[in-house]
């Protein structure tokens, strides 16, 4: 039905031979490229587990989860954590010396 519909609406142009072969060339090249790329990705993925096994001998995977503990870095994200930490220390320290604090502020 759709090809019919298309045929009704249009009169296919008279194509030159050069155009015809160029179009075929582009389409086939394109399909070859897509397959090449995805076959290579597929092969890479298939070999990845073995590859990582080799790597894991030198460099055990445990380290990864360690990178999660808060370590120097992450300027923006950790600001809040730092501030919270400061807040906590401030709070506990403050309670010990509520009295001393006022005089300190005035002296300043």
């Amino acid at each position, binding site marked *: 039905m759709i090809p019919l519909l298309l045929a009704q609406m249009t009169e296919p142009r008279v194509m030159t031979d050069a155009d015809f072969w160029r*179009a075929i060339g582009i389409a086939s090249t*394109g399909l070859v*490229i897509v397959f090449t790329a*995805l*076959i290579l990705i597929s092969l890479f993925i298939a070999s*990845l587990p073995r590859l990582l096994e080799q790597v894991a001998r030198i460099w055990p*995977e445990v380290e990864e989860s360690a990178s999660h503990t808060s370590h120097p870095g992450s300027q*923006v994200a950790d600001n809040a954590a730092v501030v919270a930490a400061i807040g906590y220390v401030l709070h506990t320290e403050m309670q010990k010396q509520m009295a001393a604090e006022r005089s300190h502020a005035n002296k300043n």
Partner: protein
Amino acid sequence: MDTFTEFFGTTGFATMTWGNAIMIVIGIVFIMLAIMKDYEPLLLVPIGMGAIVGNIPTADDMGLSVYDSGSVLYYLYFGVSQGVYPPLIFLGIGAMTDFSTMLSNPKLVLLGAAAQVGVFLTFLGAIWLGFSFQEAGAIGIIGGADGPTAIFLAAKLAPSLLGAIAIAAYSYMALVPVIQPPIMRLLTTREERLIRMAPPRKVSKREKMIFPVVAFLISTLIAPGAVVLLGMMFFGNLLKESLVTDRLARTARSAMIDIVTILLGFSVGASTQAETFLTRQSLQIFGLGALSFAIATAGGVLFAKLMNLFLTEKINPLVGAAGVSAVPDSARVVQMVGQQEDPHNFLLMHAMAPNVAGVVGSAIAAGVLWSVLT
């Protein structure tokens, strides 16, 4: 009363054309499909409302449309016309995609390549219908079943057809549950549809971290034209899988992709003004787009059957239909069609592999077409 006459001449009642009315109805239909059938609502609602807004007739000298340099809609449409929104959408998609199923099923990646046959055959068909090479490339990519890719390539190769190509791509993506099942049933036997596949293996964190970088290098060294789309998609995925940039990944897949989706959908809709949209070319594009989806589906299914000739662990060929992309709708269609034969056959996870591979595949196809046709 001169002012009144003057003003009345600027109202929609005086200047409305049949074309505008048709486009407004189409916009309303898009919104109704989204609400009542839940077909791709995140795209059909913005596009539908955009089409309504873009077809309210306004005085020419007010210059309100997406095509009038300096108008508000012009600026919102700028991200479409310059191809900026699609890569940002890909960033968000990368940041929400879990490539695990693909990593555990490397063979199924090929189905995502096979479905691209729809792109290239449609490219030939469009040339045969008289479109220029560049236009034909942009039309062919509708078969990639990936909205942002289609918009991106159309913006680069055939800006004048962008509206029609975008609408066709999203319409058919919305209609995947209608278009695909008959083709899938036609090309497979009941025995094939009953094939069960072994559950995928577990994928390690390291695999998921390394994958986006290496897959990016492989695909763009081969097809450098895909560098922007795939760069953004694999960048988004790296933000997700690196585990140390979680806040960026979260924003990329929530606020950022939402904002871009709103602006892209609405302004693409608003670009479908009757006078530029209701043309014979648009109808041809819709015809070619339907063809393209059908061929892509068939390509995926048949390639799966071809692979089965060489494999001992057979693939359920329905899974091939998911190679068209339209993530995750076509994977769900596979699940649905499979369950109609055997309610205990869970194909969804297997279908996700060709599904995401299809996104990569069509981005590469777009890259190739862009490189060759520029």
